[in-house]
């Protein structure tokens, strides 16, 4: 009986940590930015397929697990600097023959929310835009918009992202093939 009670308390505590540490639902900021983007893409019918946040709790767990892996120290250091990750995947219901462009008004709206564009890639089958946001003169957030004929993907990373950017630019450079691969 005591063992059952302990087990229940343990499971409930874990669920509470996951739910209340922002480890499942996306936050208000992400939803507002998402809505701005949806509003700019009003010609597309978007249906939410997946939308979630990996917050501090789950990330700490992930970092603990990766400490036993063969991951190199640079990558581990970068992971340590990520405080939250939010992802949204939205299916495009009204498929088009041609890939829709990402409207430029998205850039204006994201700038109003403090984001700066750093990369824009337009390929045959995918458009990708990457924005960053400064916090206290540090790189505090990164926002990625990826649009292809099937779906819209939004990714937001928060943390101290300077090393991540530096590594990304060093490894991927400005060569478009590498940028598309990311």
């Amino acid at each position, binding site marked *: 009986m005591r063992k059952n009670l302990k087990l229940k308390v343990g499971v409930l505590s874990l669920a509470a940590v996951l739910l209340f540490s922002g480890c499942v639902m996306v936050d208000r900021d992400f939803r507002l930015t998402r809505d701005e983007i949806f509003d700019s893409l009003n010609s597309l019918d978007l249906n939410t397929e997946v939308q979630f946040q990996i917050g501090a709790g789950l990330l700490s767990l992930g970092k603990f697990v990766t400490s036993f892996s063969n991951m190199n120290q640079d990558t581990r250091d970068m992971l340590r600097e990520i405080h939250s990750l939010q992802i949204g995947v939205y299916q495009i219901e009204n498929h088009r023959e041609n890939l829709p462009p990402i409207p430029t008004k998205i850039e204006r709206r994201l700038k109003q929310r403090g984001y700066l564009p750093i990369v824009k890639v337009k390929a045959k089958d995918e458009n990708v835009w990457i924005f960053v946001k400064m916090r206290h003169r540090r790189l505090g957030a990164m926002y990625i918009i990826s649009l292809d004929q099937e779906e819209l993907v939004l990714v937001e990373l928060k943390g101290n992202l300077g090393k991540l950017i530096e590594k990304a630019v060093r490894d991927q*450079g*400005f060569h478009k093939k590498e940028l598309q691969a990311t």
Partner: protein
Amino acid sequence: MLKRLTAFLVIIFIVTQIPCFAADENQYKKHPGYVDFSKIQIPRDAEETVEVFLQSPILKIVAAVTESKDQALAKMLENLLLIRVNTFKLHPTETAKIVTEINRIENMLHKQKWEKIVRVKDKKDRANIFLKIDDNNRIAGLVVMAIDDDNEAVFVNIVGNIDMDQVAKVGKKFKIEGLEEIEPEK
């Protein structure tokens, strides 16, 4: 009274931060080394286009991270206001249009007294490099416009206080085609 004073100081602090950052963001536009590539007429049928736009706040962060490995490069990155790279993968029939764009920008740069360094590799490969020298005899801007034999066009603008000894390193660090091979005259 104390609460009001604290609120007032917080507001003043926040308001003073915004102009600092806004000023950083638009400073490059007024700089003599800046060239507005946003008006380049990109052919509609261009297969792929990439634009990379690194402004001063981002470059300072990259400089801080680079400092331990290469101080000279870090110092140059700190003094830059903008690195902008536009690349297009063109259909062979569109190459002539981009050459027209390059000629138009060249005429504009000549009028603005940019100095031209031409490096023509062969009939199909073409790379034009321009430097802007400011009143203090420093290099304030660099422009590279190039088309290679794979029909890839590259437009690069670096704005700020440029150290030509470090330009090739910037090209190698960020893998900017056209910059990697620039070597200063000795």
